């Protein structure tokens, strides 16, 4: 299974994602430039965090028109795996690959902290090794993570995968770091092969960084791909 990490102008988490796949998972990975029009021999494409195009206009609004995004949409449509982390999630929303949109954090502050995530859906490509209701500790670092969606659009096009919760899994207003509707932290498309989330699993995959809970997302993707094979 081969991974690709897309680099947009202003991405800043691409090296962490690359490191995770290369050093922690030990799988082949390469960078994909935003100007590329094809994802050659990539099975799982990661859209990393950062501030693509300076977050001008809206986070992800300009990056979604990058040449590579046509290839990402094609890849997703063909059953390939796509993981959007933070700004990558915002790009997936702007591109319409997942429903909804991001608003400024309710606090108007850039939130940089560990959060707990309750896994709501273990049928996606990136959560199949999780237990239902499992709680993961993963950090967030964002200013625009206040998720907003028309509930009908969400029901028609997406599945809630992660909610901000307490350490024991209770979903409470206090556990919501940014004002997201229904504490939503991450989503999948209906098929479960495209997942986006605001927290950063790539920096919570090694003990030296304070935790390994984030590793399960990528390990799930590897397992999924080994079981299903290329579509």
């Amino acid at each position, binding site marked *: 299974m081969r991974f690709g990490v897309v680099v947009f102008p202003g991405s800043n988490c691409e090296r962490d994602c690359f490191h995770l796949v290369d050093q922690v998972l030990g799988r082949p990975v390469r960078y994909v430039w935003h100007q590329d029009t094809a994802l050659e021999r990539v099975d799982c494409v990661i859209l990393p965090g950062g501030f693509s195009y300076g977050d001008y*206009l*809206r986070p992800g*609004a*300009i990056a979604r*028109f990058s040449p590579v995004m046509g290839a990402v949409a094609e890849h997703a449509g063909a059953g390939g795996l796509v993981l959007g982390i933070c700004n990558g999630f915002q790009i997936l*929303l*702007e591109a319409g690959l997942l*429903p*909804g*949109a991001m*608003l*400024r*954090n*309710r*606090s*108007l502050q850039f939130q940089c902290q560990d959060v707990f995530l309750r896994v709501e859906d273990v049928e996606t490509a990136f959560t199949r090794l999780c237990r239902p209701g499992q709680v993961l500790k993963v950090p967030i670092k964002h200013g625009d993570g*206040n998720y*907003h*969606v*028309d509930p009908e*659009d969400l029901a028609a096009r997406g599945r809630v995968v992660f909610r901000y919760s307490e350490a024991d899994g209770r979903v409470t207003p206090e556990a919501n770091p940014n*004002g997201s509707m229904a504490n939503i932290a991450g989503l999948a498309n209906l098929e479960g092969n495209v997942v986006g989330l605001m927290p950063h699993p790539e920096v919570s995959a090694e003990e030296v960084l304070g935790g390994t809970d984030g590793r399960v997302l990528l390990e799930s993707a590897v397992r999924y791909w080994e079981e299903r094979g290329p579509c």
Partner: protein
Amino acid sequence: MRWRARVWVTLRAGVLDPQGAATRSALVSLGFTGVQTVRAGKFLELELVAASREEADRQVADMCRRLLANPVTEDFRYELEGCQEG
């Protein structure tokens, strides 16, 4: 023909506006106690070349729908006027 478009992008009714809420509370603390609501938005001004008003109008509407506003959270409106060459 050159045209000038002024575009207002605003949050849709019912969408929470943290910036507007913070601005309102700052105004109230400055003594503007009558301020009931503040909604923050974006203003963009652009000049474009198009053969006719209809063509310019069509292009600006398309720009708003595809990039300048996000239909999930935002509404837009614009004004269009001809501008002098040079």
